[in-house]
């Protein structure tokens, strides 16, 4: 049966391995090197400068500005998205009417491209033609904010769109988890006189904890990225109020031709994502509940 198996294995593996090594592994490894160089892309070989880029990063106000916005998103978006996702998932598993319709509807933004969503919400937030402000004026707000044009509101306005898009996905994830919890658990608790909230806090949430942890890691990784939505809606503005590391990196590399420095920013982002994932998994680890 396994005679001449290499005549199958080699042609089956070769194209994938080749593509993967050339277009994925090599760029990742090369990035580690480029981050230690000064390079404007004109010479074939970057000039090695050791840790210079990383030292420069520490004194770069624009880097800290962008990082600060990622941190704000990191602290807010996962909490809001997970709470709302859990809440909706909980409501939808209470035997409500139209549950199927809600589930299909809430998930849809996940399927749309982030760019299309960004454009759509730029319309919604638009000061004159947008529905948000005309609604606010209708209910008596005299001067509603210019959401994306005002440095004080732009960051939150973009964040809200991200929540709007992703809540449905996490809701579906949580519903799947909730549905796998045996009903006998609830029945026993109800006999003991537990209310809905008791059931949620003492049965659903603990048994769903592993899914919530996974969601937390996804959302953290997403909050360190944010490129497509910010690039579409504000391009990092106004006056860099929504600049995030990814948009700053893109600008530094492809508009400023500072490839060494940009790659150093990329490496620092990667280290952040890696550290965050490990820390989150450690901190949220509990004894896994068997059922």
């Amino acid at each position, binding site marked *: 049966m396994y005679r001449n198996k290499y005549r*199958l294995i080699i042609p089956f593996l070769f194209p994938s391995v080749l593509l993967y090594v050339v277009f994925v*592994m090599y*760029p990742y490894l090369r*990035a580690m090197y480029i981050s230690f160089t000064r390079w404007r892309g004109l010479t074939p070989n970057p000039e090695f400068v050791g840790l210079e880029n990383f030292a420069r990063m520490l004194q770069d106000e624009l880097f800290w500005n962008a990082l600060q916005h990622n941190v704000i998103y990191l602290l807010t978006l996962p909490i809001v998205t997970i709470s709302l996702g859990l809440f909706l998932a909980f409501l939808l598993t209470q*035997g409500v009417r139209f549950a199927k319709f809600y589930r299909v509807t809430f998930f849809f933004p996940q399927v749309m491209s*982030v760019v299309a969503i960004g454009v759509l919400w730029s319309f919604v937030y638009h000061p004159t033609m947008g*529905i948000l402000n005309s609604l606010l004026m209708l209910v008596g707000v005299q001067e509603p904010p210019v959401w994306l044009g005002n440095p004080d509101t732009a960051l939150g306005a973009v964040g809200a769109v991200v929540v709007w898009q992703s809540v449905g996905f996490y809701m579906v*994830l949580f519903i799947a988890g909730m549905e796998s919890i045996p009903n006998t658990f609830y029945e026993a608790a109800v006999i003991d006189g537990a209310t809905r909230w008791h059931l949620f806090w003492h049965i659903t949430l603990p048994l769903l904890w592993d899914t919530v942890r996974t969601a937390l890691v996804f959302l953290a990784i997403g909050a360190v990225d944010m*490129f497509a939505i910010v690039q579409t809606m504000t391009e990092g503005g106004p006056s860099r109020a929504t600049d995030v590391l990814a948009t700053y990196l893109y600008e530094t590399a492809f508009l400023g031709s500072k490839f060494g420095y940009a790659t150093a920013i990329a490496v620092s982002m990667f280290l952040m994502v890696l550290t965050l994932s490990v820390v989150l998994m450690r901190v949220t680890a509990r004894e896994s509940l068997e059922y």
Partner: protein
Amino acid sequence: MTTETLPQPAPAAAPRHQASTSLGGWLTRALINLFLGLWALVVIFPMVWLVYTSFKTDQEIFFNPWSLPTSLQWDNFVRAWVSAHIGDYFLNSLIVVLPSLVLILLLGSMAAYVLARFPFPGNRVIFYLFLSGMLFPVFLALVPLFFLVKNLGMLNSYVGLILVYVAYSLPFSVFFLTGFFKTLPSELHEAGIIDGANQYQVFFLIMLPLAQPGLVSIGIFNFLGMWNQYILPLVLMSDPARYLLTQGLAYMLHQQYYMNDWSGLFAAVTMVMVPTLITYVIFQGQIQKGITVGALKG
């Protein structure tokens, strides 16, 4: 393995445990419905508004944001499709995404099949090599990838972008499909060989058809990922004639400051969104499963 670990819906999933005849129960129920309805409105209304606004004139859009169009401006769609090149962007996206999808399904399942079912020295090394690709965020590769593609003479080429799309879809696809191929019974393999099939026939005629549910999941996951991809084309496709749909949309939005054709832009986004919506409504069950399973395994 992959199918077994899926959460099985319990027979009576929803805990309908409380009597809802009492006043308190009724009130809770009303609140639940109110909240769900409200969120549905927040999700749906912007899209409905987008669609009917795309039929309005610029005047109407600016002075009466909420009102329905007085007459349908089909011309908005013509302008967006032709003058603003949405039609071209659509075509470009198809030219890149469809071959990428075929290639990733074919190459991914071939690699996964071999890794799942044939022990050979280096098998694990290659598997973990693929796996490690999931650890790295794409922006880490951007700069070297740009220069690599440039040096290969493939900047602004469809082929270049296709190869990159396939390469970056490999880690997850191989990982997912390896799990899938492991679940297929090896008796089928042996039976096929005994019946005189060669190894290739076993793969293409027996194993691949059996892996269909896995291929569908991974196909949906990759299609959406590639269709909605933004950063890779942005870096590798700088020729406006070859912009993909996402790039074209972003470009149009940022051009508004000079062009002032809002109704055309509304029409453009509508044309991008509506096909997605229709496809989603038809295949929503598989799509939800494809993405959530995909993400969980990632």
